[in-house]
């Protein structure tokens, strides 16, 4: 299990990156934490001829508050997200999601940008981005673009990134006062990719639900938002909410697909159970947490 031969460059500017990416075309690939790419290379499923390491690119590892929201550099590592007071204050869903990802060793290398670019359908962070309405900033030879998370994930390992583009930052709108968030997943062992997962953000004004973003992962070819289920929730008052129509809408709009360990119907069942439990937890006002 040794990677096919490759060259390696630690780029120091976007220009340098652009030039090399253009010269090598499909044979060049960027590397961030390497936690998905390196195993794929070792198994020769990925065979880049040139690796472009982003770790020296200036500004990509910052977390800062901007007028648009909380901006997280693409190269921020999971462990930095987990330990950041800014993230805990303004995007607590991100903080609570990190411990669900893999194990300490992987979390100390893996990056948010790498995770989103990798677009694993069973990964937590894409769903978190959907639930929080993140905007993903990408840069390439033709300049920068800002892509809403809902348009970013296209399929299994597929994103809206164009050739030569990289993610530079992720912007999360700052949490509203009445927001309740939670993430949970069905896993057989802690740290595993989920059999089914859900990340919810629900906004309340007083006792009334004014907005809901119900994101699911490990259900189909990418993280998805359950719009109809969310709509069924909006306008209802806490304490009077009947989860049945919400779950029914959910079953209608998301048709889970099988994975190695679970049939599609098992995932459908688990999705409903998980959604029901997460709603119950959020609506009963338990602290935003994962279980």
């Amino acid at each position, binding site marked *: *299990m*040794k*990677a*096919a*031969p490759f060259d390696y460059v630690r780029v120091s500017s976007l220009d340098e990156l652009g030039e090399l990416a253009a010269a090598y075309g499909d044979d060049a690939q960027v590397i961030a934490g390497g936690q998905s790419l390196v*195993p794929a290379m070792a*198994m*020769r499923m990925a065979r880049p001829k040139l690796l472009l390491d982003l770790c020296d690119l200036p500004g990509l590892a910052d977390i800062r508050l901007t007028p648009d929201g909380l901006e997280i550099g693409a190269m921020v590592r999971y462990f930095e997200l987990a330990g950041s007071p800014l993230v805990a204050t303004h995007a607590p869903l991100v903080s609570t999601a990190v411990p669900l990802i893999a194990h300490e060793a992987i979390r100390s290398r893996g990056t948010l940008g790498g995770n989103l670019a990798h677009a694993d359908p069973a990964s937590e962070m894409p769903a978190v981005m959907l639930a929080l309405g993140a905007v993903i900033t990408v840069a390439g030879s033709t300049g920068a673009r800002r892509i809403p998370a809902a348009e970013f994930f296209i399929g299994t390992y597929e994103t809206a990134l164009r050739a030569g583009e990289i993610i530079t930052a992720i912007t999360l709108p700052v949490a509203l006062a009445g927001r309740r968030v939670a993430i949970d997943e*069905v896993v*057989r*062992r*802690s*740290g*595993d*990719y989920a*059999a089914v997962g859900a990340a919810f953000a629900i906004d309340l004004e007083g006792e009334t639900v004014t907005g809901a973003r119900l994101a699911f992962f490990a259900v189909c070819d990418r993280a998805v938002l359950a719009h109809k289920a969310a709509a069924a929730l909006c306008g209802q008052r806490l304490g009077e909410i009947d989860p049945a129509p919400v779950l029914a809408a959910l079953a209608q709009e998301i048709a889970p697909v099988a994975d*190695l*360990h*679970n*049939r599609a*119907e*098992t995932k*459908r*069942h*688990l999705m409903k*159970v*998980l959604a029901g*439990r997460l709603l119950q937890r959020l609506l009963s006002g338990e602290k935003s947490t994962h279980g």
Partner: protein
Amino acid sequence: MLKPDPAKQRDGAYVGQPVPRENARRLSQGRGRYVDDIAFRNLAHVAFVRSPHAHARILSIDTSAAQALPGVVDVVTGEEMKGLCTPWVGVLAHFPGLKSAEQYPLAVDVARWHGEPVVAVVGESRALAEDGADLIEVEWEELPAVVDAEAALAGDVPAIHPELGDNRAFRLEVGQGDTASAFAEAAVIAEEEFRFGRHTGLTLEPRSIVADFDPSLRQMTVHHSTQTPFQMQDVLARHFGLEEGNVRVIAPDVGGSFGLKLHVYGEEMAACALSIRLGRPVKFIADRLEAFQTDIHARDHLVKARMALSRDGEILAMEVDDLTGIGPYSVYPRTSAVEGNQAIRLMGGPYRMPNYRGELNIVFQNKTPMCQYRAVGHPIACAVTEGLLDKGARALKLDPLAVRQRNVVTADMYPHTSPTGYVFERLSHEECIASLASLMDYERLRREQAEARQRGVYRGIGLATFIEITNPGPAFYGVGGARISAQDGCVMKMEPSGDIRVMVSVTEQGQGTETIMAQVAATHLGVPLERVSVYTGDTQTSPYGGATWASRGAGIGGPAVMKTALALKANLLETAAVILQAEAGDLDIRGGAVVNRKDGTQRMELAELGRIAYFRPDTLPADFHPEMTAARHYVPQGYPFAFTNGIQASHLEVDVETGLVRLLDHWVVEDCGKVINPLLVEEQIRGGVVQGLGGALFEECLYSPEGQLLCGTMADYLTPMAGEMPDIHMAHVETPTLTSPLGAKGVGEAGTAAAPAAVMNAINDALSPFSAEVTQMPFTPERILTALGKV
């Protein structure tokens, strides 16, 4: 943690003390020396092109591009490999009718499992060898694959080896008594179909070998991560036409084995063949994907079984049909019949069951070969027996603990012979059950379970009584024609310093064998433990023996060391008596010194004895020759096996909405005879339990309907991890075997034998309010939800 008792240690009574493994410090600080750590000059590396199909004919192989790649040293196809060694067939005479086909290191003409090695590519580095392997083009003609064992015997299924006629490798019927009448009289018949998925050993250190052939002397030194250096020496000598004495096998540190490192694998044989061909050392280290594809797999049984019980819960009879798939070959040299043979013979083993009929069918299939892995056959027999017993007890509304107490072989019945002919010298089922009941506070747990159920929390308590086969006797393997030794040997010497060196033929793979041997030597010689060093794993320097498998290291190696220590002690006292002009019988060795036997007065340090014996023999009588070395061998005798016994219990919670199982607690009471080292016994039990829990809940080698192995990484093959493991509580009962001077039996497999059954029974106990049952391992959430009718 268990701590040694300093007073006892001062007295030199190390046997029975929880002495920590001496090698643990070295290994945990990264100072291990595994095969891959050893440096060689001019080392070449081999990588393999493997079959991408479960079953396919090789139409052509184009190696030209690989041959041309700089850094590639050699490329050898299966056809060319045929000329480099003689073939092997995994059959033994004591399994009459067992059939298998000839095997060479690489597939010839037809590949028969996904991952089978097809072409060997030798490179100046492993990466270059893999680059070369990438360039090899094989043209395949896919053949229909036999994937499920159930399909193997169907009429229209082609034989995987046409020359063998069909896909049945072995058939066996065993039994005693009249099961038909027993079932006719039964108050309750518990009947069930059990499925046991495939899993694998997953050693931390993968299979590793460096073969180093010296053409000038026709000598081959093999550094091999193996449990059985002498068995491998014999295999290599015979199949490569070398003198036995010209093959040296060295097992350096070995990072786990669990039974998978005693089989003959094509890759290792290829590495040896290539070293002979090239006159260079050749290294093969399996990567994790290769481990999943080619390390032996375990289990793979479909068992249809029923148990007849009387109204008061007495087991009247069992009938069992076991169908097991072993992949395309019976594995050499031990065969793949042992797992099924033991499964079918261990059924009902703990109980006074008078009537039994078992039928075993072993079939070929296009999957990775299956062979002996920790607790060979035991978890199957245990789960089937214990599962049926619980099912019967439920129907009769009897308590599972009481029904076991009612049925176990009792103290007054020993020696006892099981319906399949196993003879038990003396077991302690009643004591173990009683001990477990108090250890786990069974009554309280049952009350709490009932109370939790009121709250909609579904907890289960599962019990599993077990017996374990250990210390196989003189008639094992050798009787079937395999050159695998049933005895072990020890050479022990005292050096001038008074230090003791012990060379022993049993081997160390991380379980602490060397510490056990040191404890036995120090105790029986009368020297401090620190002065004893133990050397294992080198055919050139250690006495000949069977080594480590079937939980035989302590039970067979131990008495060999004990006998040798007593012999060396007699030698040393003889010399001391001459020097001290005393009677040897009046002297003893304690604390590393010669003392008066009666009052313990010190007469002479062993170092002084060494000085005189080695450097001043001129001061000794003219005809006296001090013997500073002793050698002894030990063959277990009296019984075919030293059976051990015990009982396990699992306490868990089932989330009936998600099907997830949370393990809450696990208990083991076991009796491995004399406990030489309680710390290491408990490590063995804990590790064994965890592997059993893995088989019960997590581990499964998944295949597509076409026979593609779907799990190639540890992300999709789920091993049990610390986070999900329960606390494992233990108690011991000691019933020493009287057949050995040491009294120790084995303990390596007991944990694995019964943990899956305990978990299965606990899950079914938890699910009992829903009348749902699971009998297919591993018990995945999906299988539990299916049983609950939720999906």
